[in-house]
């Protein structure tokens, strides 16, 4: 635990706290205090002292297998990717110090957008500084006053924040429920603009959307469709374009949002589209305009990684094997999982409550395994989850080692 965090958990009382704007966080502070007072290692304050590979690091002083990084394709230490980044750092400097629309567009940003256009087979690509900003910017900009955004209730925070920042009417529907979505689309007043926002893979449970049906229904109601494929890029679909490709509806998706911070292995976000007027977004989308562009080394690593992902079919097949082995193994051990079958590279293990979830997380970190602890309000239905995300660089043996760690930890904590 860092000093900063421990102090914030032991706040000095302010006299007559009626004016303290921080009193609204008291219940959260108390919950954290309660959790950590039991001596549990803080799940939200892990430090990686040394990163050995996409799947190994020294975490809080221990040699640890990484099973919660979203580094699906293991591109972070790819020699070509590193070399491209080093070259760009030397040739173009450490940062652009500017917005994409002023002095922040370098050759590398254009090359990165070219790589994305090729990867998705789309006419336009726009690179943002993060995936969060891509959703924030595109959704808040294209859906304006009088328009309707129809979205899945389990959408990512960046989608919700994009809705909150814009002026459109926001209409959520029950997770992956085609009929609930259809009913809402049908009731929207005639003539209003409609945007349906879906995700390929939902990151909390690792389940995928029935995009084939949903996109068809959205189109039949005259809606434009935006799909966030953050957790599917690189390994779902024949070309790794995502769930929309795997289900054969890529041509009906108007906007694909993605990120560089998962399979691509760096940081950044993007939107690709075939809309003929798409380029105007560069002038009207505030989270694109009013922030500095990505450093040259980052866009160089991203472009190199994206091009390598186009030839990643062997790695993709191995990643799917890993996902199946881990899912089947955990199920056989008696853990409750987020999906009946493995649908993505995320396997969510459902914990009975936050206390035992935190205890299980700690038992695993002491075994030398890092997973994500996810708790309400980030999770659906107030669940506590241990989320595992697999990497194409995890070996078969490592997956077996991981299963052994889960078995020992699960028995020690009394979950299985």
């Amino acid at each position, binding site marked *: 635990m860092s000093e900063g965090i421990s102090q914030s958990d032991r706040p000095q009382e302010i006299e007559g706290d009626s004016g303290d704007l921080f009193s609204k966080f008291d219940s959260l502070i108390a919950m954290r205090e309660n959790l950590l007072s039991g001596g549990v290692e803080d799940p939200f304050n892990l430090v990686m002292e040394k990163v050995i590979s996409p799947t190994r690091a020294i975490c809080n002083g221990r040699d640890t297998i990484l099973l919660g990084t979203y580094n699906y394709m293991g591109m972070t230490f790819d020699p070509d990717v590193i070399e491209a980044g080093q070259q760009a750092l030397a040739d173009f400097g450490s940062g652009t110090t500017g917005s994409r629309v002023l002095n922040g567009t370098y050759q590398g940003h254009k090359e990165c957008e070219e790589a994305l256009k090729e990867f998705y087979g789309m006419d336009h690509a726009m690179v943002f500084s993060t995936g969060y900003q891509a959703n924030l910017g595109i959704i808040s900009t294209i859906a304006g006053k009088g328009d309707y955004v129809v979205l899945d209730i389990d959408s990512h925070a960046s989608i919700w924040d994009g809705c909150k920042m814009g002026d459109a009417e926001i209409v959520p529907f*029950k997770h992956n429920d085609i009929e609930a979505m259809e009913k809402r689309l049908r009731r929207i007043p005639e003539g209003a603009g409609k945007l349906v926002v879906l995700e390929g893979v939902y990151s909390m449970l690792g389940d995928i959307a029935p995009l084939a049906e949903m996109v068809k229904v959205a189109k039949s109601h005259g809606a434009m469709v935006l799909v966030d494929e953050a957790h599917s890029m690189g390994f779902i679909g024949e070309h790794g374009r995502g769930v929309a490709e795997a289900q054969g509806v890529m041509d009906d998706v108007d906007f694909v949002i993605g990120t560089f911070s998962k399979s691509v292995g760096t940081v950044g976000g993007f939107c690709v589209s075939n809309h003929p007027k798409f380029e105007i977004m560069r002038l009207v989308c505030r989270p694109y305009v009013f922030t500095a562009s990505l450093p040259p080394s980052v866009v160089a690593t991203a472009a190199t990684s994206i091009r390598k992902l186009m030839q990643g079919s062997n790695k993709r097949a191995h990643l799917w094997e890993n996902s199946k082995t881990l899912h089947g193994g955990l199920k056989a051990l008696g853990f409750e999982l987020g999906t009946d079958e493995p649908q993505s590279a995320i396997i969510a293990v459902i914990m009975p409550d936050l206390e035992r979830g935190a205890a299980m997380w700690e038992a695993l970190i002491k075994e030398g395994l890092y997973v994500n602890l996810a708790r309400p309000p980030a999770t659906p*239905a107030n669940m506590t989850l241990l989320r595992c995300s697999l990497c194409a660089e995890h070996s078969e043996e490592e997956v077996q080692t991981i299963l052994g760690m889960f078995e020992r930890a699960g028995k020690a904590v009394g979950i299985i």
Partner: protein
Amino acid sequence: MDRAEVDSRIRTLIEPFNKKGIAVGEDTGFANDLEFDSLTVMDFVAAIEDEFDIIISMNQQAAIETYGQLVDAVTKMVSDA
């Protein structure tokens, strides 16, 4: 449809969501008194939308804090439709 009928229909719809059996009056608050969380709100709103064949966006929901405000809002939507 008059306000009394909207009231009586919503009163029936709210029953399965009113887990603690709280007496619902005009000033009963959804967050404070009934302790609805976001998922309960979504299911309850969906039930009302289906019953009256209307759409209540989150923007509209933000202005509805009490049972009486909900009945007013739905009565208006039904008469405007």
